[in-house]
């Protein structure tokens, strides 16, 4: 898989940005990183992390920790420590969403609704820990940014988006669910950096009724954008209280510092349907939501407006 990494041109003029698309976890994870992340190996480390998560958490692999746990062939103690971490995070979101988010959507243990966003957020954190201050990771339509987008397409690789070697206190990869907090910290530093040679990342929100079209564009600096909907894979989100497909919404987008939480919140809110979702997302501190209903109506939480890119 790593042989597909783009080759860098030789010589002093190095292309500042590299895009890489990695098929993993049943989807494709897209990276927009400083070229130094390729040279320094942190892009490769982030990709390796995603494949490791796939091996441990995929419900489609009979030998994954999640499959063995669902079949009661192992206990949580016999799994990778990240499994317990994900379970406790899922429990927290289940409680705060009134049971609309669950790690057992069909009655069987399957934390996939949390794992992808969490894994992508930590892939972004791996790049941050190695020194990158400007990157974007998109996991199948859920986006985690660090900093803003450097202005211009070509700048010397060392001039922007790189802070040098890892900080001594930083672990090689983020450890623990506290990685979400690390993203929050990068959001703060990213906001200040936005005034010096950066502009916000522009993230298009897919139009659920017109494939390839956009409903609107949001601006993100060091933050996450997650969207739940039926446009790509049909009605796959279950209302756990009804036991059937969730109805009423075509797409629901959540923005906030952590992709793990934004993604889980978007899934829970989608399952709630438009009325309940609006009141619930309005109550979430630090997170804002934008929804498109099956009828094509839209609504947004009161704090969402500043995230919308000017036309």
């Amino acid at each position: 898989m790593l042989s597909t990494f783009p080759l860098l041109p030789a010589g002093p003029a190095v292309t500042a940005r590299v895009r890489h698309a990695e098929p993993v976890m049943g989807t494709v994870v897209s990276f927009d990183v400083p070229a130094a992340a390729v040279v320094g190996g942190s892009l490769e480390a982030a990709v390796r992390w995603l494949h490791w998560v796939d091996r441990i958490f995929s419900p489609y692999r009979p030998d994954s920790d999640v499959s063995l746990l669902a079949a009661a062939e192992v206990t949580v103690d016999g799994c990778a420590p990240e499994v317990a971490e994900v379970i406790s995070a899922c429990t927290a979101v289940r409680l705060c969403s009134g049971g609309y988010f669950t790690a057992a959507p069909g009655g069987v243990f399957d934390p996939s609704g949390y794992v992808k966003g969490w894994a992508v957020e930590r892939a972004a954190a791996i790049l941050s820990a190695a020194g990158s201050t400007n990157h974007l990771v998109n996991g199948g339509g859920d986006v985690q940014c660090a900093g803003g987008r450097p202005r211009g397409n070509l700048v010397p690789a060392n001039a922007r988006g790189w802070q040098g070697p890892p900080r001594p206190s930083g672990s090689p990869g983020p450890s623990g669910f506290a990685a979400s907090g690390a993203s929050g910290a990068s959001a703060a530093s990213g906001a200040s950096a936005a005034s010096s040679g950066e502009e916000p990342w522009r993230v298009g929100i897919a139009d659920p009724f017109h494939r390839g079209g956009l409903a609107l564009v949001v601006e993100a600096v060091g933050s996450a954008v997650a969207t739940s909907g039926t446009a790509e894979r049909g009605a796959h989100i279950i209302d756990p209280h009804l036991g059937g497909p969730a109805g009423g919404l075509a797409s629901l987008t959540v923005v906030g510092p952590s992709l793990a939480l934004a993604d889980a919140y978007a899934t829970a809110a989608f399952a709630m349907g438009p009325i309940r979702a609006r009141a619930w997302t309005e109550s979430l501190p630090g997170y804002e939501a934008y929804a498109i209903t099956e009828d094509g109506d839209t609504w947004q939480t009161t704090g969402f407006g500043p995230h919308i890119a000017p036309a």
Partner: protein
Amino acid sequence: MRRVLVAVVVTVAGLVALLSFKTHMNSSERTVGSPSSVPPLLAGEHALTGRAVRTVYGPVQVRVVERSRTIVGVNILQHPAETTMDIQIGQFAFPRLVGETLAAQSARIDSVSGATYTSNGYISSLQSALDNRA
């Protein structure tokens, strides 16, 4: 602009490859379709025509039209058109591709958030077009 052209050609070739289920003959023997008319340029518009790129399925050539440094049009000048399948692919894929290119350029976006796509869905997604743009 030139990189956009290359990206468009690559994406066209990818779409053709993706959607073509039939084993094709040697590309040098293939017939080529071209649109009956290419829209004329309006005042202030410039066109950049890419060279024809030979793909496994036949030659592909595109023209990009820009106005004030913004892409306002993409014309498919040549595409594989030997079989009914080729023509159906063209009718399906090229309008979508052109629309996606224009959407990506006009909105100047870096990434797309939407319902989770599968590995197969990614190939024809706007995100895929963006990943191939740089």
